[in-house]
């Protein structure tokens, strides 16, 4: 009955589903914004981004175990695991990527795929194939009841707060710091920027590492909410990639809007039509791109 359907759309259940969807959106945004940054400046569709996210989650497991598994462990993981991922990506950039910037995008894409295979197996080698779990830190273990009858985990609220912080920091990095401004200029005209005496290669390395740091951060933040496992990179990478395309390459706010559309259409789609829930985000992407093929917001580079 249509009246019933309309009522369902505004019920508490939907609101609570939106809140849950928003915390998922935060993770998607953090990973996708890093990817967008790399795609915008270095023009690399980084398939290894998902693997770095996975490694971030596994590192979070190890670090939090090392520090006793409690709240302290989680905070140390939040600090150290993204740094570990950043170091790993720095090595990869200096050893491999920097030699390929002048070649076709396709070669860079394939290089990142090769790296994702290698990272995947290295993860298996280091951590084994078993499921790992990272405990939610004590201070976030409770529930809050914003909507009667649907308690929301405190940790999800924490995630909702982290998203905007990351968005603003990243915006400040790109628009207010010198290195961010240089990277934008270098993305448009690399020769010109290096002609005025700037080490473009190093700028690119920094941007790459910042982007990968975000992938690691996403991995750490998602770790307490899911079981950390091999293969968690595969589903995420496609989603992050589609979000970046939908938002407009290199546009951080675009990544935010893309993540919102993707995350919400996913969580609401499941309510509307459980069986085909996973189709809605893909459908949203296709509709957006058919209307605006270059993404919702202007590509800032």
């Amino acid at each position, binding site marked *: 009955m249509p009246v019933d359907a309309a009522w369902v759309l505004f019920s508490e259940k939907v609101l609570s589903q939106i809140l849950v969807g928003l915390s998922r959106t935060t993770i998607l945004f953090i990973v996708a914004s890093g990817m967008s940054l790399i795609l915008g400046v270095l023009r690399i569709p980084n398939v290894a981004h998902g693997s770095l996210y996975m490694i971030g989650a596994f590192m979070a497991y190890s670090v939090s175990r090392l520090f006793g598994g409690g709240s302290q462990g989680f905070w140390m993981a939040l600090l150290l695991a993204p740094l570990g991922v950043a170091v790993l990506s720095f090595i990869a950039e200096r050893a491999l990527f920097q030699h390929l910037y002048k070649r076709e995008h396709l070669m860079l894409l394939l290089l990142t795929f090769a790296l994702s*295979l290698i990272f995947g197996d290295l993860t298996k080698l280091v951590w084994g194939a078993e499921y790992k779990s990272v405990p939610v830190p004590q201070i976030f273990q409770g529930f809050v009841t914003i909507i009667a009858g649907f308690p929301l985990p405190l940790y999800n609220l924490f995630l909702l707060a982290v998203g905007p912080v990351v968005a603003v920091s990243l915006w400040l990095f790109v628009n207010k710091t010198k290195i961010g401004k240089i990277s934008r200029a270098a993305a448009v005209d690399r020769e010109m920027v290096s002609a005025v005496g700037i080490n473009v290669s190093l700028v690119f390395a920094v941007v790459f590492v910042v982007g990968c740091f975000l992938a690691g951060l996403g991995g750490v933040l998602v770790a307490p909410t899911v079981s950390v496992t091999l293969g968690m990179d595969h589903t995420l990478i496609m989603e992050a990639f589609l979000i970046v395309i939908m938002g407009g390459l290199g546009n951080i706010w675009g990544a935010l809007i893309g993540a919102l559309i993707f995350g919400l259409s996913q969580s609401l789609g499941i309510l509307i039509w459980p069986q085909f829930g996973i189709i809605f985000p893909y459908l949203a992407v296709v509709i957006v791109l058919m209307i605006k093929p270059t993404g919702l917001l202007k590509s800032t580079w």
Partner: protein
Amino acid sequence: MDKGLSGRAWGVGIAAVAILFILPAFLPRFYIYLISLIFVYGLLATSLNVVLGYGGVFQFHHCVFYGLGAYATALFLTKTGVPFVVSFIAGGVAAAVLSFLMGIITVRLSKLYFGMLQISLGSLVWAIVYRWYAFTGGDDGIHGISLPDIISSQKGAYYFTLSVTLISLFIIYKIIKSPFGSVLQGIRDNPVRSGMVGINVKRHILVALMIAGFFGGVAGSLFVVVDKTVFPDMLFWTLSLEVLIMCLIGGWFNFFGPMLGAAIVIALRTFVSGYTVYWALVYGIVMIFVIFFLPDGVLGYIQQKLKPAKGRVVAKEG
């Protein structure tokens, strides 16, 4: 590409085909299956190369046509009573139609955006197939598809796959050598100039996409014959990247490169995974080696060694 095959190349080719035809008499079952798979993936990679190597189009999600072709054939075989030949051709036709539909939406876009919208559309098709339990079997796929007696045995499937692959390769080769193929390569090298001399660039790319889609679908239908199963991973984007890698390792801009690449990748994976569970690690290292040291692929490298003096089509830079 060069002018055509030399006499020596013809000799090598005929000898190779003759060996392939008598091979099943000596080989154990597992190897017959393996070589059949090489034909399937080789045809898939070759079909991708029509748009990628010759058309310069970034087709990032080619395996969606492969998967759709396989599903079309499998569904026709299991749900209707039509003869096998009709089901088989339906695979290629369905894939060509999908390729056309995706093409008319995406063909106006520039390289990278083209590839990205293709991935989005392909992912949508994957998601539908993955979830439509009532029709496609969902994530279980369809197993134990029954085939006509002639090709249901392993050797029968082998000969069928070999024949279809050879015929398809011959047709693709003729297309590449035709005026249409030359125009396509002109578009690859300089789309703007091709447009200026009065070539309808979009229409040519659209036709190339349909050809690639059709033969990608045929490869999918062949997989049904070889394996008697279909599953949604056949449309998942990671497989598309693997097909790209086959082209890379064998050598694109090179007609037989993708075929060789498929053989190398499948052989490598089969034998390495016999020794270690970390075959993906080895695979990744081989890929990095090829990217850095053999940018034209193995076949490109061999050709370069064989005739160093002659002008060779070099992979486009930048």
